[in-house]
């Protein structure tokens, strides 16, 4: 497997309680990996350890390695802002920045000094809004507050904002759970279209969504990885009893 992220012996503690127990994983490049498992099993914690959000909480302790392209992102000489630039996050609820629609996309570009001059900014903003399927809806109101958008539109804006800084990996923590069915479909479609260029890791509780999206599946239970494999393996021929139980809706 051509893996993009490799996790080795990863342990995460919140204070004294252990949320992740000795995780070993590989996440395939340019595919959609879906993480599943019952509530509280550590899916969000795992995602947060990929973009070093874990350390935002002072009570947490982490050991082990998370390697992106063979680079341990927890090594000493790593710039955490570069990690987060390379690994974008789409959160459960959209949180646009307190600025205009245009600025939401342009902000990251400006921060990372990726573009120069109004023309380059305009082009980039238009491009990424188009990729996120939002351009036609907002092209006449680019300078209105981002909060004037519907929740579904805001989530696509957040996607555009994340894509604009040219990440290689996109993490999504139940990115459609706050959205209506149409908006959810929209996001799903965009994710499907993005996987040729990005490695995507999505947490979801919705089995049907998992089946639609997944190329690779990780099933977790109580802080451990129970089973990981291609979508076909996991959905059609799960090996572990827990996985079978979860897939048949016993949890």
């Amino acid at each position: 497997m051509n893996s993009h992220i490799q996790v080795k012996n990863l342990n995460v503690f919140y204070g004294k309680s252990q949320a992740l127990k000795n995780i070993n994983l590989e996440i395939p490049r340019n595919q959609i990996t879906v993480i599943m498992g019952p509530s509280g099993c550590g899916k969000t914690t795992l995602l947060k350890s990929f973009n070093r959000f874990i350390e935002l909480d002072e009570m947490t302790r982490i050991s082990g390695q998370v390697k992106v392209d063979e680079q341990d992102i927890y090594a000493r000489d790593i710039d955490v802002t570069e990690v987060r630039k390379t690994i974008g996050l789409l959160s459960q609820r959209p949180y646009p920045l307190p600025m205009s629609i245009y600025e939401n996309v342009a902000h990251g570009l400006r921060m990372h000094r990726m573009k120069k001059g109004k023309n380059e900014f305009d082009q980039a903003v238009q491009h990424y809004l188009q990729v996120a399927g939002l351009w036609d809806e907002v092209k006449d109101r680019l300078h209105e507050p981002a909060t004037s958008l519907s929740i579904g539109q805001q989530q696509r804006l957040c996607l555009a904002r994340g894509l604009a800084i040219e990440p290689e990996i996109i993490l999504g923590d139940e990115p459609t759970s706050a959205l209506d069915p149409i908006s959810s479909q929209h996001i799903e479609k965009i994710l499907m279209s993005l996987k040729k260029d990005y490695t995507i890791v999505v947490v979801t509780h919705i089995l049907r969504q998992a089946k639609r999206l997944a190329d690779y599946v990780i099933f977790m239970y109580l802080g451990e990885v129970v089973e990981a494999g291609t979508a076909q393996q996991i959905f059609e021929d799960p090996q572990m009893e827990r996985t079978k139980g979860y897939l048949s809706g016993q949890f």
Partner: protein
Amino acid sequence: MGLKKHWQRRHVVEAIFKYVMLISFVLVLACLGYILWTVFSKGLPSLTWAMISQTPKGGYYLGKEGGILNAILGSLYLAMGGTLLAVLIGLPIALYLQTYLRKSHWGKFIRISLDILWGIPSIVYGAFGFSVMLAVGMRSSLLGGIIVLALLELPIMVRAMDEVLQQMPKDLEHAALAIGATKLEVALKIVVRQMMSGIISAILLAFGRGIGDAASVLFTAGYTDRVPTSLTNPAASLPLAIFFQLSTPFPEVQQRAYASALVLTIIVLAVSLGSRWLSVRLSKYSIK
């Protein structure tokens, strides 16, 4: 069904408390109304154009010609200068407290220190400022007043900002961190923008304390009948003007004290309306 209201103890308690709250509310409202009424009814008749456009001429304090332009401009210079200085120092402190210290021991220590400073009477600030000024050979001046007012305003401003910044939604900060912002970039570009209206309220609160204070500027800024033209000139202020006029034995001068109080009230009102307007404009993009 037993849905009918039976007067139980808890209902009685609720009714009593409701009235206690109502009475307190009315009491406060009545006080405020009475103060405003006094200031307006006593001040308005002697509030002439001459009063706000002229400096005191000889014999002003005996009831002759002149006005309080010296105190109006003095107060504006002092309070605006002091507030500006306090913002320049206070906003970084508040951001530092929230961004880096949070609930650490140092953070707690600084918050307690600020609370103590907040409680110190302004005359102490004045006396302290004056003794420092004497030690370095500085005369009573606009600059001295501005510095002492800034010190007086700092604790209340920083603590108010601190409380405001505490309301910053964590998820919004995370959204900015997720696209690779440093903590400093989040503080300066996201937190300040998002919390702008609260920050302006904090500044206004401090400005109100500054412009209304007499004791701290008494020695440090001094008093003069002239309009200050440089930072080294002494400067008059409205609270002191009110005090001096009210303590003369002449009724017409005492009337002018009320007119001065009216001017001070109107300035404070105008500044708070202005900052409200500004705050609405600046928080157009805030996430609700």
